């Protein structure tokens, strides 16, 4: 007897960890020339993108981690069952948005309180190493939960410049991602390229992308995420011509 034909698709479940840069110094625009993209329209693109991931497979999981200036934290987990039930009380706002925005606000306030003690000097980078580690911890937890787990992937949405003092920590995170075969995709929305993320994507086999037109961020993200599905080796993925020089010391 032929087995169910759908078997071949059952393995395209993915776990996407999205690292959101919420650095106020970047989004405040004091430091960079974002111009085109405001934080709210950035979020709109990202939320649509998250919806599209969840739409593709009901088993897909999305976890959002906010990368702040002083701290980082989990903002949203699609696997928690609350996410489904919440939406009935406030008619208009979809569950994903309302929950995420609320947590995001709490996070930003907390992050701000921490920063009062030390006012920024020099490069105002986000805590990328911290959020990468959080993402890897989460993935490890999923790996250990059972023999069957979704394909994990990390997507860094980074705007702030690299923080040289985080170099060792970031590289350690990258190597640990490489060891556990977790690709790190990166999408740089800031003005300059990120050497950290170029290396991260290069070493882990992810895709590094620096969109030219930020108002089409959603489309960039969907194209980049083509490889979320195992079959996608088949598809031509755009890659940035910038090959990182592997020994970039800050």
């Amino acid at each position: 007897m032929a087995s169910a034909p759908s078997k071949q698709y059952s393995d395209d479940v993915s776990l996407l960890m999205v690292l959101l840069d919420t650095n106020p110094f970047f989004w405040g625009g004091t430091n960079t020339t974002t111009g085109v993209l405001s934080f709210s329209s950035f979020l709109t693109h990202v939320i649509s993108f998250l919806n599209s991931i969840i739409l593709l497979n009901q088993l897909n999981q999305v976890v959002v981690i906010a990368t702040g200036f002083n701290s980082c934290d989990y903002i949203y987990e699609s696997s928690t069952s609350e996410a489904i039930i919440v939406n009935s009380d406030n008619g208009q706002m979809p569950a994903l948005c309302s929950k995420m925005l609320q947590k995001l606000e709490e996070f930003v306030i907390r992050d701000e309180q921490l920063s009062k003690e030390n006012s920024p000097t020099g490069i105002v980078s986000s805590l990328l190493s911290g959020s990468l580690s959080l993402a890897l911890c989460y993935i490890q937890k999923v790996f250990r939960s059972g023999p069957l787990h979704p394909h994990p992937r990390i997507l860094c949405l980074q705007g702030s410049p690299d923080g040289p003092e985080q170099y060792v920590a970031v590289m350690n995170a990258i190597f640990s991602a490489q060891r556990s075969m977790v690709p790190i995709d990166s999408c740089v929305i800031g003005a300059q390229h990120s050497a950290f993320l170029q290396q991260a994507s290069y070493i882990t086999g992810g895709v590094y992308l620096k969109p030219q037109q930020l108002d089409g961020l959603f489309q960039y993200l969907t194209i980049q995420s083509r490889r979320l599905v195992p079959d996608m080796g088949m598809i031509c993925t755009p890659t940035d011509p910038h090959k990182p020089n592997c020994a970039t010391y800050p």
Partner: protein
Amino acid sequence: MPQVKIIAKNFMDMVAALPALKLDKLYDNTFICEAVLRSLPPLAKKYVLQMLYVDVPVTAKSMEEWVLADGFSKHRVAIDRLIQLRVFLESTDRKKETSYRLNPKFQGNLQKYLVHGGVLPRDPMSSSITVRLPTLEELESYALNQWECFLLQLISSGQAEKTTNFSSSMIEVFQRGLLSQRGKEAPRLTESGFQFLLMDTNAQLWYIIREYISNSEERRVDPADLISFLLELSFHATGQAYNITTLNEVQRSIIKDLADLGLVKLQQGRKESWFIPTKLATNLSVSLSDSSSRKQGFVVVETNFRLYAYSTSKLHCEILRLFARIEYQLPNLIVGAITKESLYSAFDNGITSEQASIISFLQQNAHPRVADRAAPAVPENVTDQIRLWETDLNRVEITPSHFYDDFPSKDVFEAACDYARENGGLLWEDSKRMRLVVKADIHGLMREYLQKK
């Protein structure tokens, strides 16, 4: 006897088989769009996403450039599927160039989804009205119980403790192809019936639902309505209560049948009544046979052909009885033995030992204690013996053939032998006494050849 092939066919194949007009109407419903999208092969999903904000037709040629050369066959499959489900609409322009665009309804619904996120088809009732809802475990055991009850009624009507509300004609429809009746004997399970019992719950459910849908026109229910309702049902949250009044007339009659199958649980409060979808319902649109839904096994087979099944289920007992001698039954344990006689009666019913049959049943349902061992779940000597007993039955193979003798000379005989060999029909030759046997299908050729000589 009509040959009914049991395949856990995908729900979407049924959707794809609907006439175009009805299919387009189905896409008015966001949940159907969502379910259809999720059922697509990975590559096709990506294409839909890619095309989601493209309003003009994209030529087939430029789409081909999206894939690397070795992915081309998958590309073909994806495109075919998309067209079959009318997610892509194909058009050919004057220059004979084919181009595709997304079905506008489908496109609109998905765009809405991306902005608003997933919502539930209907709001659950507040817990103040529904006093005590069953817990998820209770609900699951209810669903399995209900399903087992239905199966038992299906395979042996006398055995079931309580019968479901399905009319006997409906049951007969379900039984078609699974059971065969010879004269006045009690109906016996056919080969496909046995395979049906060995499939996992999800696959069985599909089979029944499929029969249910294809039979719907006789009950004057539009299959498209039925399909859309079933798909919608699968987007409800498991364990939540939903008011029956939100359903229309047709759906209310459907939901009663579904309750019999264990897809939903019906409950009644003081004034209102509601339905609670179970896991079976919410798994409906899931690309089936996920190994995550594997049930816990219960069978231990020992090297001495003894079989211990830790199960309280009558259904399990009935299934085991098909190929094993049940010796005694304790409240939670069925003890039996696999014997030559019991297997012969199984083979007699057309049940085979290989492929999705006895051996794989024993392996799939192995008790976790056995399954976790490094050794094979079913001892090798047992599986080997089962196979040997089966081949015993197939020792003689019958081929229709023709016998030739009285050849005038050795030369003619040898030429005839060569000719038969060339045509792949020589079965036996005896050169001393000049006799040979050829397959019946080349008899004509042989005769022509010999007459020419």
